[in-house]
């Protein structure tokens, strides 16, 4: 299934677009998606360590705007947001 990963904050540096797309197996989890993104960084940014740290320290948000854990199963084609460490105000 195809997942649209919406980019926010520093993860916007991953693409000129606002999102990335990944193909995941059925019943994949956020943990699997995170690994896909790490593989993307390896392939497209020569394993940039800062980008990898960013991916590892990020949380994720479901299409229904809930923060979800690594065990969350992505059961259908949907948009997922990557939420890097935050700091507004």
């Amino acid at each position, binding site marked *: 299934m195809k997942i649209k990963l919406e980019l926010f904050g520093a993860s916007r540096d991953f693409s000129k677009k606002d999102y990335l797309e990944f193909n995941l197996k059925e019943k994949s989890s956020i943990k699997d998606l995170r690994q896909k993104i790490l593989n993307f960084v390896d392939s497209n940014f020569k394993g940039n360590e800062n980008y990898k740290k960013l991916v590892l320290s990020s949380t994720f948000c479901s299409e229904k705007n809930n*923060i979800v*854990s690594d065990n969350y199963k992505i059961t259908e084609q949907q948009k997922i*947001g990557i*939420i890097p*460490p935050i*700091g507004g*105000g």
Partner: protein
Amino acid sequence: MLYAKVVDVSKEKIDIAKAQKFIVSSKYGASIYFVGTVRDQNNNKKVTGITYDSHDALVIKSFEEIYQEAETKFKFENIAVFIEHIKGYAALGDTSIIIAVACKHRTQAYEFSRYIIEEIKKRTPIWKKEHYIDEESVWLKGNPIKTR
């Protein structure tokens, strides 16, 4: 009573007059306005501006959660809270956030306002990209959001 919004500064302005209008009432004896602005230095670098990024839906959700938690924690009656945070580019001195709180008494207003800004800093999904003179712009390191 809460009003919360993310203001896209490419389309509209953030305006303290809106906050004043929202919280004004003879029910309240104390009003606090917290206004965050872009300053010219950070980590010994000369800042020229900041671009704010936001996950709008999660930001509003977090403002609502923080407000409800504060209500439960402090148990004050009759409170009005106005929160606006910008997204987009802000130059030096521009306003990035307004938190207006009106309560019966000043101690309540101070406590409520302080709680809101500190919690926003910890967990509201807003990001800052700082711009400098003669240096590449940088996304600031923030706090990871914990999954619950």
